[in-house]
Structures are given as structure tokens and as C-alpha cells.
């Protein structure tokens, strides 16, 4: 997960319980299926944006920078629906096999805003959550067995090793004049050695963890994840806001 800036790390959202934050976000995203009108869709983006600018500690510029790559996808979502939605109104415009309609464009805008909401909650979550805190919180708050939580954390943590391994493989192959002919086929050539190396390393990590006494027994935690009224408040505010958007508009 990306390094949060100091301002974000100190933000109120960063102090929320990671597991509850994740659960609440998932519930809100689940409810997005009920958003059908353009106004609802546009409004559903408001809560996460307000949260990011207030308790998320993100500046407007950072926010725009994070959301900008989504602009292309926003266009695509509108386009898919505009071109493929089935509607009763007369087709406005024909082009090749596409039938663009007004209803389709509206459907597209609804879908695009829904996806924007999902992306915005995502940015809010990623930029205010520490991965290790999330894993520890999963154990402490949601009773995920530590074996799974820490096992997965260990697995995720040595992702950067892949990049290094990739460069090594490439250097070794170039030295022997056996590098892949095209850069696109390189992934096929390198897949097996990369994966088998990864499996070997993971086994070593697992053995090392067990050798240091990582077992399923009762355990204490160095990091204590806070859980309290502010998590409840956060959940209630978000749920209420979305309920209002879905019912009132």
C-alpha cells in the first residue's frame, strides 16, 4: 500500500478502526446497486469527497491527482451504456453497430458516477489505512485466525522481491543471449521461473515464522488497534447519508 503523507497519517480517518472502515465501505458499495437516477449517482460521490477533504486530510490537488486517471474510464462507462443500453426512445444517432440514445447516455452517467464513488471510497481507504494495521485489526476485531492474517501479510510484503527477481532473470537470460524476442512474450518466458522462485521463498518464510514460534496459540499484540465511538459515528453518518440519497432523491 502506498506511503501516506504525514498529514494523512495524522488525519482522523487514519485513526478509525481499519476493519470497520472496510466493512462500512463494502456495505455502502453494496447499496450502490440501488442507485438508478443521475441525481442520486452524482450525490453518492459527495460523502466520500467531503470525508477525504475533512477527516481524510487530503488536499484538493492530491484528490484531483488521484482521481484524474479515472477520467478515461468515466468516458468509457458513459460510452458503453450510451451505445448498448436498450431503450424505447428513438435512437438519436447511428454509427457502425452502435445505437446511441438519450436514455443510454443517462444510464451511462449513472454508472460512471457509481464507479467514481467506488474509486473515491477506494482512494479514501488506501490513503488512510496502514496495511499492517488492517491485518492486526482483522485478527483483533473480526477474529480472523492470525495464521491466515499474518500469513497473507507475509505473502503481500515480499511483492517487491518480484521486481528484483525479474531483473535477475532478464540479466541471466541476456548474458546467455536467450532473452525473449519480444517484450510482450517475456511474461510467458519468465512466468514459471518467477512463480517457482516465489513458492520456494514463501516456504522459507513460513518455516522461518514457525521456527520463531508463530503458532495458532493465544497471542498478545504489540499493536493495539483502537475501536470506539468514533467508528460507530463514522458508520452511522455514512449509512445515513447514503440512505437519504437513495430514498429521498
Amino acid at each position, binding site marked *: 500500500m502506498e506511503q501516506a503523507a504525514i498529514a494523512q497519517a495524522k488525519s482522523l480517518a487514519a485513526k478509525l478502526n481499519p476493519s470497520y472502515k472496510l466493512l462500512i465501505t*463494502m456495505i455502502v*458499495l*453494496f447499496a*450502490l*446497486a440501488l442507485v438508478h437516477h443521475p441525481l442520486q449517482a452524482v450525490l453518492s460521490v459527495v460523502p466520500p469527497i467531503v470525508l477525504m477533504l475533512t477527516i481524510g486530510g487530503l488536499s484538493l490537488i492530491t484528490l484531483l491527482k488521484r482521481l484524474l*486517471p*479515472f477520467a*478515461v*474510464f468515466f468516458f*468509457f*462507462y458513459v*460510452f*458503453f*451504456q450510451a*451505445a*448498448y*443500453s*436498450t431503450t424505447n426512445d428513438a435512437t438519436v444517432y447511428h454509427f457502425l*453497430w452502435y445505437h446511441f440514445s438519450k436514455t443510454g447516455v443517462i*444510464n*451511462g452517467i449513472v*454508472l460512471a458516477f*457509481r*464507479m467514481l*464513488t*467506488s*474509486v*473515491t*471510497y*477506494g482512494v479514501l*481507504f*488506501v490513503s488512510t489505512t496502514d496495511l499492517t494495521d488492517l491485518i492486526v485489526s482483522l485478527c483483533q476485531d473480526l477474529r480472523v485466525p492470525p*495464521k*491466515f492474517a499474518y*500469513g*497473507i*501479510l*507475509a*505473502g*503481500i510484503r*515480499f*511483492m517487491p522481491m*518480484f521486481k528484483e527477481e525479474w531483473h535477475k532473470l532478464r540479466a541471466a537470460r541476456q548474458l546467455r543471449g536467450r532473452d525473449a524476442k519480444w517484450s510482450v512474450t517475456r511474461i510467458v518466458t519468465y*512466468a*514459471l521461473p*518467477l*512463480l*517457482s522462485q*516465489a*513458492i*520456494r*521463498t*514463501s*516456504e522459507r*518464510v*513460513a*518455516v522461518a*515464522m*514457525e521456527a520463531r514460534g*508463530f503458532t495458532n496459540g493465544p497471542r498478545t499484540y504489540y499493536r493495539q488497534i483502537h475501536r470506539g465511538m468514533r467508528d460507530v459515528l463514522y458508520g452511522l453518518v455514512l449509512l445515513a447519508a447514503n440512505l437519504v440519497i437513495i430514498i429521498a432523491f
Partner: protein
Amino acid sequence: MSWKLREIVVAAVLSVVCGAIYLGWDFLFQVVHAASPVAQAAFNGLWWIASGLVAYIVRKPGAALLAELVGAFAEFALGSPYGMAAVFIGLFQGLGAEIPFLATRYQKWGITTMMLSGAVGGIGNTFYSYYWQGVNQYSVGNMIGWLVVSMISGAILAGVLPKLIGDALKRTGVLRNFKIAGRE
């Protein structure tokens, strides 16, 4: 039947690798969708390859679901254009892919079970896409096309392909300590 630590770590590593692949796929196949939703469905199967790969190697209850969730979370955390919805769709794809393994009580790991798993993962994908991804607005032909082609795509890309990768890895000998090699 309980999981060993090494199985969990290997599952996580493989899932995260798949998550990185999912992210690349996210960007590639929007263009194909523009040409036709059904054409995009043909590529859908790759998005639940982690399920088949990890389940085939580890062969434990919940492997397909766990792998897909971890993969989808990695995809999301690395910056997927689907945002948090990526985790959500992963949940449905993983649940789908898990069903055939559960139905065979985690005993049968032939090509048929693998293809079934990929195909049912396609049903999970369609369920999500129908309610959240706007597929419910398409014509009936496109909807059925999406379902059928996703299932076929899943059977091949998330069923046959992971089996081939798994078998190739088994031949290298690195999986000797895993259930795929007939040992616990």
C-alpha cells in the same frame, strides 16, 4: 484438512501476483468492451485465475475464495480503475469458483472440475456485472451473450490455464510439499 502456514503464504503470494495481472487486464480490456460487451466477456475469465491456480495447488476448503479476495484486494490497492468495486466483484467470482470444488468435497481435481470452477466463476462475474456494472441495461442478447461467453472464458482462462500452470510448477519440483503432489 486444516491449512498449513506455508500453504497460506504461498496462496497469498500467488494471489498477489494474479492481482497485479488483473490490474493490467483492467486497463487493456475496456477498449474491447467498446467494440462489443460480448467480446469483452471472452477475456473476463482471467480475472478469477487466482481461484483456480491456488485451489489447484493447495486443495483446501476456501482456497478459491480466499485467493480471489486477496488477488482482488491487491488489484484494488495497486490502483484499479474499479476502485473498491474490484474487491466486491472478486468476492462474487471467488464464491462462484469455490462451488464446484465444494460440490466435489475437495476430492476431484481433474480437468472437468477445474473447467466447472472457471465456468461458475463466470456466473459470479455476471451476477455482479448485472447488478453493479450496468449489464442489466443491455439487450437480452447481449446479457445472455455476456453470461455464456464469460462462462466459456472462465472455463478456459480460469480453469484450463491454471491447471496447466499448476502442472508445470509441479514438474519443477517446488510443490513437493503441497497437496498437488499427493503429499500433505
